[in-house]
């Protein structure tokens, strides 16, 4: 049985994770009820975390879970929590035939462009020794190579916090 070799099993696991991710994304995009859409999003994030783990980066996988499932999804749910849970998204009265017909070629064009880009880019050579999720290396690169990006992101977060405070103040007095 070729399925039961380590490579075969790894392939099966990868396909399973990819299907989970895509299914989650599909639910998130098509669900009529907001709670289900968020649950689909969380499922997609879990699948993505699984793919990161599969690619031997447990640190990124766990961060994906901690931040995207544990924080982003919870924040989204919290934000729309006060909406009536039973309400379904109103079906639009517009005809969907033209957008559907247009979306296929546009999507195909986009996919084709991405594939061309992915195939022709000079990707950096994969690291010789796969990093076993070592936080020391990640810390070093965050504070040396990527320190600029790191600081910029923290400025964005600071602005978000100040913005939230300003908005909250306004309601109070």
């Amino acid at each position: 049985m070729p399925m039961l070799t380590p490579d075969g099993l790894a392939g099966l696991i990868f396909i399973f994770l990819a299907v989970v991710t895509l299914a989650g994304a599909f639910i998130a995009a098509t669900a009529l009820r907001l709670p289900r859409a968020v649950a689909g999003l969380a499922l997609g994030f879990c699948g993505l975390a699984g793919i990161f783990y599969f690619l031997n980066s447990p640190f990124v996988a766990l961060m994906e879970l901690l931040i995207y499932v544990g924080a982003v999804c919870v924040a989204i749910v919290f934000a729309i929590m006060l909406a009536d849970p039973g309400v379904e998204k109103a079906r639009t009265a517009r005809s969907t035939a033209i957008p559907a017909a247009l979306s296929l070629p546009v999507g195909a064009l986009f996919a084709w462009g991405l594939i061309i880009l992915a195939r022709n880019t000079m990707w950096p050579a994969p690291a010789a020794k796969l990093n076993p999720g070592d936080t020391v290396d990640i810390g070093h690169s965050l504070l040396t190579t990527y320190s600029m990006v790191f600081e910029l992101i923290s400025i964005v977060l600071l602005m978000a916090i100040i913005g939230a405070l300003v908005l909250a103040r306004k309601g109070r007095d």
Partner: protein
Amino acid sequence: MNASTEVYRLIAFLVGLIAFAALNAAYLVWLERKVCGHIQRRIGPKEVGPYGLLQPIADGIKLMTKQVMLPPQVDPVLFRIAPALVLIPAVMSFVVIPFSENLVAREINVGLLMVFAFASVNVLGLLVGGWGSANKYAVISAARCVSQNVAYEIPMLITVITMVMITGTMNLNEIVMQQPDITRWYVFRFTASPLAPVAFIIFFICSLAETNRAPFDLGEAESELIAGFHTEYSGMGFGLFFMGEYANIVIGTSLATILFLGGWQSPVPFIPGGWWWFLAKVYFLIFCVMWIRWTYPRTTLWGLLNLSWKILIPISLLNLLLTGGMLKLMPLAGGAG
């Protein structure tokens, strides 16, 4: 070790851990009722078996034979997956907990992070359950649970970051290895952080709040919200929420044991360390959790959030700064910091 024995070992561990989570929940309920009974000068369960020891089994049979009701208004998919979403992350977190030096399902370098990553999914389960129930009490309870969990995750993570700065690793077994006797438990490591016991207390309070235990059980305040997010659940649906809650208590106290109380290491040199020490410390902390639950009345939501934002977060930030300064001035001899 070749690949196939590793797979069998993992499967055996997973089955064992699920059995542990279930049995543990059953007997913690018994313990809870006994502790609560004695604290309130009652006896607690005593009819089924000696000292009521068979009570959890009777309860289990009762829960499993009950019909799982699906009220007409609920979202059938979300309503059904919510209990599993609460229990599965808790069981997953057990995978990295070292019960003794070798008794750990999978030792990974970022074990501490893994526990917190899965713990954060737990909230989503409560939210989905509360919302899927289409019950206003359940929705209010879920909203309370989230604000509480978000508020207490911050001081908890700051405290954990402080501990990681001291230990220099997120591998739970290595953290335990650094605390071979009681003087080197991190709760007493004043050379690393003068506020070490305070850090332990902050961590303990936060884990109480994260698991929605009294006095922080605003999510299921019976007098106001019936039973909170699990109002609509019957039979084993409710049973899974309960198992998840007790599994999360064990995870929280295990982490407190590992980070501050030396894990499976023996506190004294003449008794060897092992899983018995780990379980003894964990169950002692669980007893404290129950003791607190039956001693203090429920706080208000206002008081709860104020405690976190105005007291715990500033103190934990101060602790972080102090620890960073101490580590810079006098690097630890024992730890990797």
